[in-house]
């Protein structure tokens, strides 16, 4: 019996190393089924890496592309468009305030050091109703210039992707909390210029999800400041080539976009790889250099792509 067991282990071990595939609850049933691409009445809209965000309450999807913000209904059809001039500045990102009103992050200068970042409150028509000014930023964040915005429970979550800093404020822009990810990730200050955040989103409990492509890693920053990390470089399913967007579904699974592999990988709450969907290709559910990702309450997944492939929508199903 001993001999058999040792032989078994000796046989299995090399296979584990060679395959590089996580053993864990692999292929537990989460699947992404391709549904459609976001469209107008002329067909799928040929965006290249737009920003996408979802108004979960109103089941609407907002897409930002070349300073124009389009609103799509639950069927993926464009129903409204605004911001397509430069009156609102150059729009970087959009969030919803919980009441269906857009919060627009924009700037008016090529030089973010000049402090011309603006957060513009709009009504549901996209008409400006006011501005939010960041206030009481402490030392270390006084020059903070965000290029991502999210909103949940009256808190604004702002990120500067290239500086690896995140600031939380109240709905009026008053500073609540700030994170400098460089020390949190165990990096040196000299790494700041060579490292950036790829994807950035919120989980329902206020956790911040983000990826660091050059470190082949994905992270969950809990509201108490605890950081959990996962990801390993590699080509096998479940390993990371160049990761980008990240979101969590209604079950708490993590969906991580891999730009290079052109897939969306699904991990369970314990960061165990479950499955992937997408794959490089022009047909149906194929993806070309996917980047951003958003998810609605019904676990419909919106994936932006490059190469004028627009935004593909997938439905998650669970066994």
């Amino acid at each position, binding site marked *: 019996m001993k001999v058999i067991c040792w032989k078994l282990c000796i046989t299995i071990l090399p296979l584990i190393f060679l395959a590089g595939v996580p053993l864990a609850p692999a292929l537990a049933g989460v699947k992404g089924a391709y549904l459609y691409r976001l469209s107008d009445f002329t067909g799928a809209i040929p965006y290249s890496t737009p920003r996408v965000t979802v108004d979960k309450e109103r089941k609407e999807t907002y897409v930002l592309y070349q300073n124009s913000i389009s609103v799509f209904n639950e069927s993926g059809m464009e129903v409204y468009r605004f911001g397509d001039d430069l009156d609102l500045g150059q729009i970087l990102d959009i969030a919803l305030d919980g009441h269906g009103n857009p919060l627009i992050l924009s700037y008016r200068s090529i*030089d973010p050091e000049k402090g011309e970042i603006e957060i513009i409150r709009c009504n549901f028509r996209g008409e400006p109703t006011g501005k939010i000014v960041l206030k009481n930023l402490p030392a270390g964040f006084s020059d903070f210039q965000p290029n991502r915005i999210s909103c949940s429970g009256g808190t604004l979550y702002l990120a500067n992707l290239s500086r690896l800093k995140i600031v939380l404020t109240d709905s009026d822009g008053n500073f609540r909390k700030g994170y400098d990810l460089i020390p949190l990730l165990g990096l040196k200050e000299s790494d700041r210029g060579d490292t950036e955040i790829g994807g950035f989103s919120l989980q329902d409990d206020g956790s911040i999800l983000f990826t660091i492509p050059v470190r082949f890693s994905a992270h969950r920053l809990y509201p108490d400041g605890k950081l959990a990390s996962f990801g390993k470089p590699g080509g096998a399913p479940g390993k990371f080539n160049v990761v980008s967007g990240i979101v969590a579904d209604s079950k708490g699974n993590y969906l991580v976009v891999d730009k290079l592999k052109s897939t969306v990988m699904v991990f369970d709450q314990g960061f165990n790889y479950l499955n992937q969907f997408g794959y490089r290709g022009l047909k149906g559910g194929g993806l070309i250099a996917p980047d951003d990702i958003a998810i609605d309450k019904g676990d419909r997944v919106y994936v932006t792509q490059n190469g004028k492939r627009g935004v593909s929508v997938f439905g998650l199903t669970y066994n």
Partner: protein
Amino acid sequence: MKGLKIGLAIAAVALLTIGTGGAAFAFHSGGVAECSGCHNMHSPAAGGSSLLVGTDPSSACLTCHSHAGDTGPSSYHIATADADMPAGTAPKQRTPGGDFGWVKKTYNFTLRGTPTTETGDSHGHNIVAADFGFTTDGTNTTAPGGTFVSAQLGCQSCHDPHSKQRRLTDGSIVSTGAPIVASGSYDSSIGNSAAKPIPAGQAVGVYRLLAGNGYTKGAASYTGVPAAVAPATYNRTEATTQTRVAYGVATGTGKVTWSNWCGTCHGDMHSTGNYVHPVDTAMSTAIKNNYNAYVSSGIMTGSASTAYLSLAPFAENTGDYTVLGGHAKNDNTQLGGPGDGDQVACISCHRAHATAFPEMVRWQSEGEFITAVKADGTTPVWPNNTDTPTSNFARGRATEAEQAAGYYDRPATVFGAYQRVLCNKCHAKD
């Protein structure tokens, strides 16, 4: 049974070991990067090559080197995403090589009553990166002055992604020997200052992983790497201070001068054996004096200590990286003009990737003036459709910011009104 438990324990340890990889740091680190950043052993692009995942090599590069959502110059990004370039706005990156986004910016305007188009493909090297919307040069089927096929042009035509070229402690550049431990491109890199020599038994990578001796792509066969050092923060606006890349002149095994390197593909444009503008040639005393005295059109009161202009750089007559490292600054502390033996090179007038202007020149050379005045008749302004709508020099740029982007955001007041083309920085004919 006990054996099985021990075996499983070993397997568990093995799995944990696999799962605790180290940090990636700067990814390239002066040489070949982590394989998984570009290749996929198990699911490469169908019909592709080399187990690459991108549709083509340049698409693989841009997966990291382009990113939607930048507010401005951002680290190692060298191509502004389509999503960030609405009409009337400029690409956002300000690397010394230039933003490839410019090749997607086509301008239509009326010039002296004639509808005119300034095509995007005239603005730079038209790399083919299908996933990112970069297509083959629509004008040139081969490299101007050479036979390199335009349809084959990609990042890998000039950069060696697996570069084995290394600079050793003695300054020699070879493809084998001591291991490459880090980039050698920056003023902060080891080997680029007397205070931080390359440790014995180690080497640094060559400037920007540029193709070196023995590297061949299509009709291009390189014979060496040119010398340069960049400031560690190089992708930045020059609204207040200039970014000085210290280009050098290095010769010997594994090294070439800058224009000879460009001439690998553009051989007939090199002045050796061809009646064209001289390159790889020491600036004459008259030219040096012009450069050092030139401030702006008609103003010749400058001095050699502050004459440097990143819109018209030159190659210093040295292959000493500690000298170059000391000159590669972004804070205006190193603005010395050309000295004896310093050379004019292709990069004196062109950026390597792309610019806002035709023929990838560093300034608008399709006319006599590069600045104008606002309606008040005196305030200098970069020509644009808003402030100078009747100017022949706006050339379709919607706003001053869009035009200024081509000059890395300098205010027009740096030169003043009615500044003429920057050929005059050396030739002072204005």
